């Protein structure tokens, strides 16, 4: 068990180090998040009232689009010099490789989100911090769901034609329940309403989604990496 955790951490540290040295994915993702935030301001009248109402949808669309850019690079980065083959043949289980990569992606996507969130508050003049910790919990849960399916689909699409296009086509429909729940909760929380018995079901769904897809991904990742 300890060995497994260490393997996960090594993979995670390797990915984060590689990303922080080049900053290619995170820079692209951040500037893309900015562009989408800007574009939304043309789509509707950004008064405080309307913005609060649709804040959940707006934020999660930004998060999902920007996250995709990071997830796309996760396995594609390993194609040069056949690094992917080396990783697969390394004496670690596929699930350790997967979890390490998923955690690295998680940190990167969360970082982009935590920068985009205050920017959203500034641009749209919304005070979003009144339910700060509950909002952070929703962001953490929704992002994990997005990252776990995104990472496994990143492995699935790494070797195929149209890689960049296929990832969102596969990932977004699967993510719809998670995104829907996260959007509902985020809108309420940004409006200053804490999670109550009314919308608790969304939180439970989000947690269930995360647990289920983490489990299924861990079971199937070996099959995906070896590829038959």
């Amino acid at each position, binding site marked *: 068990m300890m060995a497994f955790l260490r393997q996960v951490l090594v993979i995670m540290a390797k990915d984060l180090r590689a990303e922080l040295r080049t900053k290619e994915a995170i820079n692209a993702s951040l500037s893309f998040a900015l562009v989408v935030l800007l574009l939304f301001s043309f789509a509707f009248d950004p008064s405080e009232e309307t913005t609060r109402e649709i804040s959940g949808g707006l934020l999660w669309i930004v998060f999902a689009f920007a996250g995709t850019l990071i997830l796309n690079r996760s396995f594609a980065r390993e194609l040069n010099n056949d690094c992917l083959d080396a990783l697969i043949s390394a004496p670690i289980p596929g699930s350790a490789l997967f979890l390490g990569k998923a955690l690295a992606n998680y940190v990167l996507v969360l970082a982009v989100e935590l920068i985009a969130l205050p920017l959203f508050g500034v641009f749209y003049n919304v005070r979003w911090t009144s339910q700060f910790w509950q909002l952070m919990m929703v962001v953490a849960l929704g992002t994990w769901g997005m990252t776990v399916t995104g990472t496994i689909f990143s492995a699935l699409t790494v070797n195929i034609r149209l890689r960049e296009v296929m990832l969102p086509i596969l990932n977004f429909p699967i993510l*719809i329940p998670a995104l829907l729940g996260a959007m509902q909760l985020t809108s309420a929380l940004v409006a200053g309403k804490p999670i109550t018995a009314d919308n608790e079901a969304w939180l439970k769904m989000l947690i269930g989604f995360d647990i289920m897809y983490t489990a299924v991904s861990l079971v199937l990742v070996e099959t995906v990496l070896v590829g038959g």
Partner: protein
Amino acid sequence: MRDKILYVLGAAALILLARDMVLITGFPPEINQGAIFKIIFFHVPMAITALTCAMVAFVASILFLITKKFQYDALAVAVTEVGLAFLAGNLITGSIWGRVAWGMWWAWDARLTSALVCWLLYAGYLMLRNAIEEPTQRATFAAVFSIFAFIDVPIVIFSIKWWRTQHPQPVFWGGGSFPPDWKAVFGWQMLAIMLVGVVLTAVRLRQEQFQREIDSLRRMAHAL
């Protein structure tokens, strides 16, 4: 032999469909909705057939991952394509009904939305298949995605149900009532549409088999 069975099944499906069509047009219009209500005889069986196809695809995908036998992969892709067609038929008939009953083609109601999401999920499956050349890799990756998609179906349905509901309550399991002679025709219609599904799947399976034979012949020719 297999061809003959296929022809017989296909003919049976066509005769049943024709017979049901005559009976259905003979029924009086429904009291609240008028003639448009009768679209239910196509709408609901198509939905059930599509759901059955998704289940078969799920089981076939698991069996492929366990056994690595290509006939399961062929079955998975055949039923997925057929199921997608039926789901499209379900969405289109529902849309026509909505135009008459609600006055709009589309409403973001729970069932409509979840049907559309499921359609997108399985369309993604076919696109993934198209993007992969190598047969073993294609079959494996497609099977993995099919499992992911099938697990998502109940979550999609429940989450969107919490989100909103506008679809009329199901006629059969909640609320509404159906006169007995309509019920009998509905049963036959269900059978007829299922049969169409089976025949289409069988035809698609054969195609898949031929494709594999052609591929192996081509490889042999290259090896010479």
